[in-house]
């Protein structure tokens, strides 16, 4: 009898209000209202607003380009003298920026091809293989057709960006980067 009148305490000293065996009294329900249906929906609506606003700058820049389609201008850069390369040779160069490495391949006497040599799979440098007659990415054995830049084997699925060339006064010049459409 005496025992029942006394306030019951559990091992940690917390008060046990009822003599029950399902222990639901220690579940805190104070923060229950923080994640009710309405505030959840409010958060979702807010996130939707953030998404909507975040695309505005992209849209604005795109609209600017559409209204004023000024073609990007590239510098003209001398790559190599014609007599410095034999057919089947390749040289590496940077164009247009100093970190945009590229590869110039002389296919025949008058045929040159140049591509940015970052593999379209994981940006490994692509090399010219004279024996295979293809551009090779050694990382995962990706192969690219040297005439078109299109991938022919391995993981890459997109072509290499091509660089526009012109041959003047016995030398090869880079004049621009082809618009990348893939």
């Amino acid at each position, binding site marked *: 009898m005496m025992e029942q009148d006394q306030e019951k305490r559990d091992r940690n000293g917390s008060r046990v209000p009822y003599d029950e065996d399902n222990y639901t009294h220690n579940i805190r329900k104070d923060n229950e209202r923080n994640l009710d*249906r*309405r505030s959840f*929906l*409010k958060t*979702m*609506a807010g*996130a*939707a*607003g953030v*998404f*909507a606003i*975040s*695309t*505005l700058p*992209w*849209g604005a*820049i*795109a*609209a600017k*380009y*559409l209204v004023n389609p000024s073609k990007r201008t590239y510098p003209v850069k001398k790559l190599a003298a014609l007599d410095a390369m034999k057919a089947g040779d390749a040289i590496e160069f940077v164009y247009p920026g100093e970190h945009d490495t590229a590869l110039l391949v002389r296919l025949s006497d008058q045929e040159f091809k140049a591509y940015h040599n970052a593999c379209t799979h994981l940006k490994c440098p692509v090399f010219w293989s004279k024996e295979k007659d293809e551009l090779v990415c050694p990382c995962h054995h990706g192969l690219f057709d040297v005439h078109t830049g299109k991938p022919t084997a391995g993981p890459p699925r997109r072509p290499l960006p091509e660089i526009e060339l012109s041959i003047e006064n016995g030398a090869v010049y880079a004049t621009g980067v082809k*618009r*990348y*459409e*893939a």
Partner: protein
Amino acid sequence: MSFVLLLHIVFTQQVVNAFFYEQYGKVLVFAGLNVLMFPVALWIYRRERNVRDEGEG
């Protein structure tokens, strides 16, 4: 509502993709869709809120 948010994610991704490939018309379409989705989200939110208010009496 979750579906609206999913569409937002998809459209934003498409905007960035189209921008990367310099397809600016596509960028505008998806950016416009993304902006239009916000009133839809707001409308769903209001509708849900009103339903709840009525329920509570």
